[in-house]
């Protein structure tokens, strides 16, 4: 069923029910209105009867003129009501009797009034009493009639009310039924199909393109579903065509993109090639060596500017000439043979030095490298040759050889001289110590035998002399040690430095204890293995630490820190102290032999310690220097070659130490 038909039926049924019920209710209400009007009429009649009763009673007592007048007026108004009842009222059957009673009442009251107005006689009171009795009886009868009318009206009102109730119930029940039927129809024809439609549309919208409603009834919603199916079909077809079209477009776009990429790539390659060609041309022209090409006939086909310069001929003269024509005639045949062998692939390349002729007839040396040029198929196109002018180098090499020979001779002479000098120094030192020992011995003998003949100054002079001999001996010993460093040392070999340092500290233990110094060997030192002479390295360390202890500040206890770090295939060691420091102007001087910054009264020593240190370090191929701030302290640096690979800080080695 169509929804509009359902709605029309519902409207028609509702209208019919409303019309019928409304008619019934209207009719009943009209009846009730009439009944109400009649009831009011009956009430007014009852009031009138009551008033007549009261006035009659009052008149019975007082016979006053006012009561008489009121009785007559009220009787007349009651008569008017009886003669003009409301239209359609109930109790119309009583009206004739009421009218009769009313008329009779008037007659009776008139007779009572007349009796009162007449002169009194003996029977008038009895007559009046009888008349009044009749009057009251009639009033009672009228009252009963009025009550009957009133009751009939009330019955009519009750009946009308009952009809209204029945009509109302019928209206309510019918309305409920119509509503239920309409609601059921709406549920079946509207709500459920709409939900079905909503679910279907949602599924279609979620991508279920094949979803169709099929036949969904003859209602408007069924028509909507059918229209939706058609629309979905059309949409599906459109989407398939569109998808294929889009796919083709995509493919074309892809091909176009690939083509464009290929074109761009080709353009790039061409550009690169051109750039490469230009680069090569520039290199070819700007090359410091002569570059030339020779065809299979041995004729120069290309020659760069440098070749023209090198051979002293313009390129156009070179191009077209035979290559071997430019080779020195002593090597020309060998050069031709080698060129032919290269062209014939008997040899792969040439790399040799030979002499050439310049255009102006001057010969020069050239370093020739030559190679075959092949096509893609392996055919020999010719040769490419590169000639470097090595005339200057050849001359230098010849001069150097002469110099080397000269130096070798000098070296031999120097070694002999050094050996002699060392021998001299050793002998001199050794021989010098003998007279010194004699002087000391005889000075001791003089003191022992003739000491009591000497006065105080004499003893002092003896002490000075003996002390001088002693220092002389020490100087000779130091000189001896200094001289031995280069020639009497042990071989240089890999050695860990930590044990050597510990040994040096053992030797210095008395000085360390005396000065209450704090000497610290950084753990970085434990990893250091150097190429060295253990005895000399120990002496090096002992001298440096000993200096640090000796030149300590009186204001603070000495503190010495020994550390190291790897640096360029070597180990750099630091001996840092908090001593008196050194003025920067003395940094170079202190490493000189017998150089002292202080008097012997201030600090003992011969002034050869740092010179020995320098000589030891230099023997090991290292370097020694100092950084210092006066009254703050000094740091002595020296380097020794590392034994084997030296790891950097990133390999777990300590970080570089800050400068002292």
């Amino acid at each position, binding site marked *: 069923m169509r929804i509009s038909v359902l709605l029309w039926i519902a409207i028609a049924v509702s209208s019919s029910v409303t019309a019928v019920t409304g008619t019934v209710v209207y009719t009943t209400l009209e009846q009730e209105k009439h009944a109400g009007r009649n009831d009011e009429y009956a009430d007014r009649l009852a009031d009138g009867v009551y008033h007549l009763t009261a006035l009659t009673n009052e008149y019975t007592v*007082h016979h006053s003129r*006012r009561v008489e007048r009121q009785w007559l007026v009220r009787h007349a108004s009651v008569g008017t009501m009886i003669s003009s009842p409301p239209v359609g009222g109930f109790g119309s059957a009583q009206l004739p009797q009421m009218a009769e009673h009313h008329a009779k009442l008037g007659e009776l009251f008139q007779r009572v009034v007349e009796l009162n107005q007449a002169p009194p006689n003996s029977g008038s009171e009895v007559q009046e009493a009888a008349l009044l009795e009749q009057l009251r009886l009639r009033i009672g009868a009228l009252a009963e009639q009025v009550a009957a009318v009133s009751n009939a009206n009330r019955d009519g009102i009750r009946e009308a009310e009952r009809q209204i109730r029945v009509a109302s119930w019928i209206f309510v029940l019918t309305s409920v039924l119509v509503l239920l039927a309409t609601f059921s129809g709406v549920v079946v024809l509207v709500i459920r199909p709409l939900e079905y439609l909503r679910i279907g549309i949602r599924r279609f919208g979620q991508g279920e393109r094949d979803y169709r409603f099929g036949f969904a009834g003859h209602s408007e919603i069924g028509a909507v579903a059918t229209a939706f199916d058609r629309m979905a079909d059309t949409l599906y077809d459109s989407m398939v065509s569109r998808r294929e079209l889009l796919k083709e477009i995509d493919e074309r776009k892809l091909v176009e993109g690939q083509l464009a990429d290929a074109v761009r790539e080709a353009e790039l390659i061409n550009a690169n090639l051109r750039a490469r060609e230009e680069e090569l041309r520039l290199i070819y022209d700007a090359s410091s060596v002569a570059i030339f090409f020779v065809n299979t006939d041995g004729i120069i086909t290309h020659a760069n500017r440098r070749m023209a310069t090198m051979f002293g001929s313009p390129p156009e003269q070179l191009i077209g000439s035979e290559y071997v024509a430019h080779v020195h005639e002593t090597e020309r045949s060998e050069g031709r043979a080698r060129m032919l062998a290269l062209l014939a692939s008997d040899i792969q390349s040439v790399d040799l030095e030979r002499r050439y002729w310049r255009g102006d007839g001057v010969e020069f040396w050239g370093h020739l490298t030559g190679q075959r040029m092949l096509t893609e198929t392996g055919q020999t196109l010719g040769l490419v040759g590169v000639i470097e002018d090595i005339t200057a180098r050849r001359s230098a090499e010849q001069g150097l050889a002469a110099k080397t020979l000269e130096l070798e001779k000098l070296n031999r002479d120097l070694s002999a001289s050094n050996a002699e000098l060392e021998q001299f120094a050793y002998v001199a030192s050794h021989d010098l110590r003998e007279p010194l020992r004699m002087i000391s011995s005889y000075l001791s003998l003089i003191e022992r035998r003739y000491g009591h003949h000497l006065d105080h100054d004499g003893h002092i002079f003896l002490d000075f002399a003996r002390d001088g001999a002693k220092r002389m001996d020490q100087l000779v010993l130091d000189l001896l040690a200094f001289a031995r460093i280069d020639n009497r040392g042990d071989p240089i070999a890999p050695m860990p430095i930590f044990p050597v340092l510990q040994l040096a500290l053992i030797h210095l233990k008395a000085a360390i204890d005396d000065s209450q110094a704090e000497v610290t060997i950084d753990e970085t030192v434990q990893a250091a293995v150097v190429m060295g002479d253990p005895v000399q390295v120990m002496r090096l360390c002992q001298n440096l630490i000993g200096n640090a202890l000796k030149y300590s500040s009186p204001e603070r206890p000495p503190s010495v820190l020994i550390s190291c770090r790897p640096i360029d295939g070597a180990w750099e060691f630091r001996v840092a102290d908090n001593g008196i420091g050194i003025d920067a102007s003395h940094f170079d001087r202190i490493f000189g032999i017998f150089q002292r910054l202080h008097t012997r009264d201030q600090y003992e020593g011969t002034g050869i310690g740092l010179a020995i240190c320098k000589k030891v370090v230099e023997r090991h191929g290292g370097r020694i220097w100092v950084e210092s701030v006066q009254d703050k302290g000094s740091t002595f640096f020296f380097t020794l070659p590392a034994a084997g690979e030296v790891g950097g800080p990133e390999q777990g080695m300590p970080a570089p130490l800050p400068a002292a």
Partner: protein
Amino acid sequence: MARRRAASPRESGWHWCVLLLLALIVMLPRQSLAAERPLVRLAVSLTPLSAPVIVALEKGYFERQGIDARPIKIIGGHRTIAAMFAGEADIATSSEAVVMFNSFKRDDFAIFATFVSNEDDVQLLARRDSAIVTPRDLKGRRIGTIRGSAAHFFLSQILVLQGLTPSDVSIAYFQPEELADALASHAVDAVSVWQPFGLIAQRKMGDAIVAIPHERAYIETFNLIARRDFIAGNSKAIEAMLRGLILANEFIASHPQESQELVSKFINQEFSLVRSLWPTFTFEVTLKQWLLATLDSEARWAMAEHLVEGNSLPDYLDFVSYAALERIQPRAVTIYR
């Protein structure tokens, strides 16, 4: 906070025009009404029973109904009706007893509305030491009252209801204000007196006197009375006055305290006195059938007591004019017709 929008000059001018027009609409009819408003001189008896008339005057209800009511304050209903007969007033407020007495003298006036009734206005007071407890104990006693007044009528009705005749008691007549002293001086044993003289006597003597409970043998009414020719010639003014009274009774019902204050101030009586009397009043604009019966009874008593000259009962239907009240409030008229 809402910000009041400033009116533009154009809007402001438009508003002024509307206000002026409204003022003209409101003012013009009033001015014309004031010009045409009929003058009604009202002789008002200065008793709380005149409360509806006083409230209507004070609240402007008569003016609102289109009449220019001007009160003439007079003590005693017999004087208000006298002023009316003398042409000093157009309408008088008075009890029905005054109407009854005057009905024997002239018949050119009528009651056109009762606006208050009171079953307890007249009291029977007795000295406590007189041993008078019920009305039956009045036999053989000296009783004071005001001759020819409602109190006198009330006393006669009490005696009748107790089966006594005037000869069974000794009645002495005084002015209202003398009765308290008469009781105090033992000149009488009991008095029959209307308010507020009963309350004044009770205040004066305190516990020495008691109010004797009775059977409410008399319903006093206070009425609007006018000459017939005035009623016939001023029906609109009469109706306006009735409407004003109806409004006043509605105000009294809703604002009793304010009404009492207005009345107290108007009659120059203590507020507490007015307030104590107030509950005995029934404020209602009517014309009841029993008013005619009451007038008949009072007239017959007056003739029997020779308080009036004449021996024929007046027809009091001629002394009641119910047409105006019937027009504006038909149910208020219960006179048989």
